[in-house]
């Protein structure tokens, strides 16, 4: 019985992977993260949105790499070897997120998440689900479903 009790308690706890882009800290639910890799060269895609860096080869699988900085409106990343790609699996698709550095894996409680400030930027409200305060830093929780490249009309 005691085991069940702990289960209930941990229900709202989750692990997140925190990472940085420029000066800002962000995080993803660890359930989406498959692995973290160093920067590898990508193949440029024709007519791709500016935040899609290109396609990368992950052990034979072909997946798009998204420049999260560009996607979030923080400016284009010029990728070099110090950059990191977080491989994530979201909505049945695998995708790589190009970020500056991965900082930590932290256990948080879902109730600790505070709502995103009601700012005017559509990007902030669309892509950030909320924020966690961890010690001194604010960690922005990314809405993974929104952040994925949206289907272009030609796809239909």
């Amino acid at each position, binding site marked *: 019985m005691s085991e069940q009790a702990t289960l209930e308690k941990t229900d709202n706890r989750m692990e997140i992977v925190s990472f940085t882009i420029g000066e800002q800290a962000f995080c993803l639910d660890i359930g989406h993260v498959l692995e973290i890799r160093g920067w590898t060269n990508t*193949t440029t*895609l024709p007519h791709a949105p500016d935040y899609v860096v290109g*396609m990368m*080869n992950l052990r*034979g699988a*072909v997946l798009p790499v998204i420049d999260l900085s560009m996607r979030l409106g923080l400016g284009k990343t010029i990728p070099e070897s110090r950059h990191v790609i977080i491989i994530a699996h979201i909505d049945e698709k695998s995708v790589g997120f190009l970020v500056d550095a991965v900082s930590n894996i932290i256990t948080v409680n879902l109730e600790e998440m505070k709502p995103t400030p009601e700012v005017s930027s559509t990007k902030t409200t669309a892509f950030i689900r909320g924020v966690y305060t961890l010690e001194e830093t604010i960690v922005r929780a990314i809405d993974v479903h929104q952040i994925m*490249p*949206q289907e272009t009309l030609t796809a239909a």
Partner: protein
Amino acid sequence: MSDLRDMFFEECDDLLEVLSTGLDDLQNENSDAETINSMFRSVHSIKGGAGAFGLDRLIKFAHAFENVLDDLRSDKLAVDPTITALMFSGFDHLNDLVDAARDDNDLPETDGAAVLAELKQTTQAANGTTGAEDEDANEVSEDDFVALSVNIGLDLGGDDSGLPDLPGLPPLGETSDGNSQFVVKFEADSALYARGHDPALLFRAIGEMGDLTIEADCSAVAPLESLQDAPASISWTLTLRPDDGIDEGTIREIFEFVEGQCTLEISEMMAEEEASELVVAPAPAAKAPEPVAKPIAQKSPAKAPKAEKVEKANKQEAKGGDGGKKSSEPRNSTIRVDLNRVDRLINLVGELVISEAMLRQSMNELPVSANSAVSEAIGQLKTLSGVLQESVMAIRAQPVRGLFQRMSRIVRESSRQAGKTSRLVMVGEATEVDKTVTERLVEPLTHMIRNSVDHGLEKAEDRLAAGKPEMGTIKLEAAHRSGRVVISLSDDGAGVNRVKVRQKAEEKGLVRPEDDLTDSDIDNLLFRPGFSTADEISQLSGRGVGMDVVRSEIQALGGRINLQSEPNKGTTITISLPLTLAVMEGMLIEVAGESLVVPTVALRETLQPGQANIHDFCDGDRGLSVNDSMLPIVDLGEALGFRSPLKNFNNQSLLLIEGESGRRSALAVDGIVEQREVVIKGLEQNYQTIPGIAAATILGNGKIALIVDTDQMIPSPGNGNPGLRKGSELTEVNSYV
């Protein structure tokens, strides 16, 4: 339940194939008693499964069908052409019923009513009975097939009466000592219950075998408050004082359907001795293909309980061999595997091959590459990974037999509709082709066959006048030739009426009267869009969506199609296909520093820089003159948005491509690297469709190269290049998101 249902329909496909093979043998007078037996068993198994799922119409029909086969088997009826024809119609309808049941459709009541009536009549005539059969069919569904697992399991016991029932278990194997008794310890896993099995039914079946005492051990059952979602925890000890003819194998059979979902221990004890011999290893039995011909009751070697799929397949073997009876020849043992697993394996091996190529390439760059031990090992690795890839690809490959058998039905139907008699001869049915390819060949082949029957074969009187047998022959042939599969369809008809084809083509403005056309040019006019020589639109063909659709479907599979015809001898259409859709022949090119692949299927010609005769037009448009005509030039780098338009094409190589529509254009690229086989990787899986790009591939150095969608690179007049303009607009729209 839906899993079981899927499994049933998969099994139906196999069973129908057996039935179809049997019918062909009957028709070719190539049959023996076993042919009819195996046909009977197929229909019977379909009926059995249908009973479990309450598919009443299917049961009823299968029952009538089965009765006729039973009469044939017991020599109450003799095989003659009428019966064979009846069985073919029966088979077709059975197919329809299975398909309808699979898709949850209801066929119109009238469908197959005639066949059903005829089947019944045949049985009645043979047995001198009246319409009591109907009720029989209903009884069957209620009594024998409700408890699906147990009863079908018993059917394996060599009981050949067709309607298995519990007391009917025949003596099998050695008779056990009157003094011995069996102690069966049985503990069901949760999986057993999850699949809807009921231990009580199993025990009841055992109870039929002799004097049975059952003890249940409930000590492991959790207290009520924590019972929810608890694992199955009741175990039973059954003590059986068996009747004559019951041995361990017979008991084991009862549990056959729950193998892997329970812990089963059977031990035989002499009455006076205590636990003399623990007969059975804990793991259930594996039947290698051979035991098919042996009595099923024999003790089989142990095997891992988890290999359910293998078991299942083996069980089918047992069914095919009909227990103790001798089967004519051992069937290949097969397993059913989820296609996703195979695809995963294929992907993994593809990755392995790429890694191997990467390793080899980087070894070449190292100074140590001269080291013979290393290079030898790498050479071996290359060979092995190549063989491995081939073997894995072979898993997806399937014999074309199933496809051809479907076609034999099309021949029958279209002959009936066209009022002609014809037969289908199949050659090389064992040729293996990728499953996806066979699936996508159904439509084009159907169309081609209808065409052959409708246009290819002459009317009976014309055939006789030409000194040919009245019955037309359509030949479907498959073979492997130089890494491709070649499927050819030939008829012994009148051949293409070239005068008429030419006349039609001129009427439709496809050719000019003054054009000089070779015979083969004229024959291939049939593939042009909107071409049909049938004066009147018949029910079968001639609707104008004809061979051009066939051709584009074949081309979509990376195949080529060709037609040859000889007056009064017949027409042969040859399709050449790649062995698999996963690999494609392509030309590796370079544009703006990116490597790209152009599919060879679309490629007609390549021109080196300086060879081409380029003319400028408005807006930087350019044309290339080839053989008196002017082709549009598409700058690939610009079309894909890799760079701004080139001022000067002097250093560009040109690739002449032809799209599915037959229109051509020339792609300007920076350089042509080499022609090679590439493994196709879809982009939609992780990303989305990209304008101008069909797929991607991974090169030896691990880099990704995109495969150009040549059809999108052929500009339609005045609309600009779809790959270029539409795409770039969308990019802008998208970046505001």
